[in-house]
């Protein structure tokens, strides 16, 4: 059977062979962590501690503010050095709590394991996912509990776990699925119970055969669960595309997965939920792939949140040569950074270092209307026209051509033979349109 997929998309050089076979190594906790209050989409958490306070491992140090928000927990035990603004790789500024490690990893005494999900009510599970500080670990970091509280009249019938990991170079989810398949499946079952879903699907690109095998074994014939092998193609893991591929359902333009009865979570999010239920330890660490030709010894590392990315690079032997570009996340969507003090946050899936020779560039030329962007756009948009309208500042026309359907996967920019910054122009115009909407209320 041909693996399922979607229309459009691209086949970049995957580069996953550098790390996909490497077991997850645990990075020792650093001397100091920086924990931003805005590690998730929505309202930043409110700090609960001040400089000089002593905190324990897993202790809540930031309280969720409003519904679309999650708490932040201490990823080490020690003394709070400061509470103040830091900049994030995506350009935003967030208040962050900096903690100095006392080396004791003293667990917060009030933490207790909620226990078996089957003994917990769906309502309780939804509260717990928030208490665990869960936000999507695939990169967008949307608070998980929000997805499980659908609006009136909407019902969840299927939970799709996203194990596509379509971003080139990243292998953190791959390794997690291979090494912790049981945990991923337990997390999925707990999520299904929380949402009242009768079906659970783990969607994985077929280039991860060992992960598919491990997951199938972990499912152990449960009739409600299945593994969906998907074609290896970017952006297979984009929410709407993975639903299209795994279930054949089409999320309406401007709509959400819940409109077709689906919630999508990253496999790492599910595993973190399973961890929390079993141990009571909230989300304080994650797997990060440190890779690229600019890294001496690429690795998959289990790291505490708040660890500066410099520590990860040091654990990998540092730069192999003068770096050309350092990217937090994958090469298609991750932001490039200019220093290495940025902390690992809930959505940090990788650190990619490109060599100088690899840095993509070239002069932007006029559009020759070749149509490659049209061909690859998963949303069937006309990126060339959208970028042109964006350049002209013609926001009305851009909206009429569906610019807000763009999910910024970057396929158009990847294929453009004239090296036009299509997605940057589109992203910029989208920002202006959103600002305009906010203004007009």
């Amino acid at each position, binding site marked *: 059977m041909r693996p399922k997929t979607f229309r459009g998309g691209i086949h970049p050089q995957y580069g996953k062979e550098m790390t996909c076979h490497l077991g997850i190594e645990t990075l020792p906790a650093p001397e100091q962590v920086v924990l931003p209050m805005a590690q998730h989409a929505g309202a930043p958490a409110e700090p609960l501690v001040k400089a000089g306070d002593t905190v324990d491992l897993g202790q809540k140090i930031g309280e969720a503010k409003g519904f679309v928000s999650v708490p932040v927990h201490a990823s080490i035990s020690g003394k709070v050095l400061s509470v103040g603004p830091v900049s994030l790789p995506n350009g935003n500024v967030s208040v962050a709590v900096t903690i100095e490690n006392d080396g004791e990893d003293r667990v917060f005494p009030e933490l207790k394991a909620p226990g078996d999900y089957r003994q917990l009510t769906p309502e309780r599970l939804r509260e717990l996912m928030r208490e665990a500080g869960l936000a999507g670990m695939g990169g967008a970091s949307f608070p998980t509990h929000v997805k499980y509280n659908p609006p009136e009249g909407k019902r969840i019938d299927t939970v799709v776990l996203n194990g596509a990991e379509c971003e080139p170079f990243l292998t953190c989810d791959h390794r997690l699925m291979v090494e912790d398949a049981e945990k991923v499946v337990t997390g999925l079952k707990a999520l299904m119970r929380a949402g009242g879903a009768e079906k659970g699907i783990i969607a994985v690109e077929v280039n991860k055969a060992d992960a598919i095998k491990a997951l199938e074994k972990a499912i152990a014939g449960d009739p409600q669960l299945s593994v969906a092998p998907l074609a290896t193609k970017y952006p297979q893991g984009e929410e*709407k595309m993975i639903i299209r591929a795994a279930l054949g359902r*089409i999320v309406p333009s401007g709509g959400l997965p819940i409109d077709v009865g689906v919630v999508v979570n990253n496999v790492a999010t599910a595993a973190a939920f399973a961890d929390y239920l079993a141990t009571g330890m909230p989300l304080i660490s994650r797997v990060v792939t440190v890779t690229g030709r600019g890294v001496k010894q690429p690795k998959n590392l289990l790291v505490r949140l708040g660890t500066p990315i410099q520590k990860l690079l040091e654990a990998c032997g540092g730069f192999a040569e003068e770096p*050309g570009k350092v990217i937090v996340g994958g090469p298609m969507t991750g932001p490039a950074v200019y220093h*290495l003090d940025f902390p690992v946050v809930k959505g940090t899936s990788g650190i990619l270092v490109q060599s100088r020779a690899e840095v993509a560039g*070239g002069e932007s030329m*006029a559009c020759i209307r070749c149509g490659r962007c049209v061909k690859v756009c998963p949303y069937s948009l006309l990126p060339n026209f959208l970028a042109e309208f964006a350049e002209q500042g013609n926001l009305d026309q851009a909206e009429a051509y*569906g610019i807000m359907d763009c999910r910024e996967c970057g396929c158009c920019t*990847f294929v453009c033979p004239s090296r036009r910054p299509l997605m940057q122009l589109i992203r910029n115009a989208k920002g202006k349109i959103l600002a305009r909407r906010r203004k007009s209320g």
Partner: protein
Amino acid sequence: METMLNPEVVVSSSPHIRSDVTTEKIMWQVILALAPAACAGVVFFGWHALAVIIVSMMAAMGTEAVTRRTMGRPVTLNDGSAALTGLLLALVIPPGVPLWIPAVGSAFAIAIGKQVFGGLGYNPFNPALLGRAFLLASWPALMTRWQWPANSLAWAGSHVDAVAGATILPLVKHGRLASLGLEIPLSQLFIGNVAGSLGETSALALLLGAAFLLVRGIIDWRIPTAYLGSVAVLALVFGENPLFHLLAGGLLLGAFFMATDYVTTPITPRGRVIFGLGCGLLTMLIRKFGGYPEGVCYSILIMNATVPLLDRYTRPRRFGEVAKGA
């Protein structure tokens, strides 16, 4: 380890990887795909044909350089588009023309057909075809002086003189072949051993190049399929041999290399189908009812003018878009 990165480390917006296909590579691959047809032209019509090709390409590139410099814009010879236009123009004019004809034609194609509009990417009409139309309108006698390759008229027997001055399309159109009781072997038409424009006669050579472009994903199959398909169907409707219409004249060159020019054809999949169908319809109307024996050049130029409209009204339905009124 320093935490501040060296200022030479690039910070830019995602995506950070690019496909290795560039405009430049595309243009040179199209030129490569035209090489068989150009070689066939030289084989059939002799060394003068090679001179026509060289002069045409040089004139196109020279005009590109001069016009860009005059306008104070970066000289974009490297993108290969001027060389391609020069080559295409050479392939669509008679092989025996004096050498100033391709020079003037290419200069017109680049200066008026392309740079006046802003250069590559902005011209509404196919520059090479515009150059050809200009030459045909200005020097009609020179542009319709045809030559048959040596020994290519054996099939005409004693009627050699009656057919030697024309290409095959007008001979058939005006019933001259039929009245002489002659029929041209289709195999000869296929390999290109007939009178015609320099690079249009050899279907074999053109199909080789076309296959290369299709396999490499450089041209979209929609336009040539719709174009050739509609020509074949209309030939049947008009009671003529579809194979003859596909092989004769400039159809294959036009359908695979002119009607697929990115800049002057639609960008939407449906728009491309309609564009191809329109080209086929106009070509057959001109061949059957028009004042000219051949209609490929004008049909493509006319359809070029409809491109903005086609793009506007054939936008693909967006993912998850609900039909209006549903």
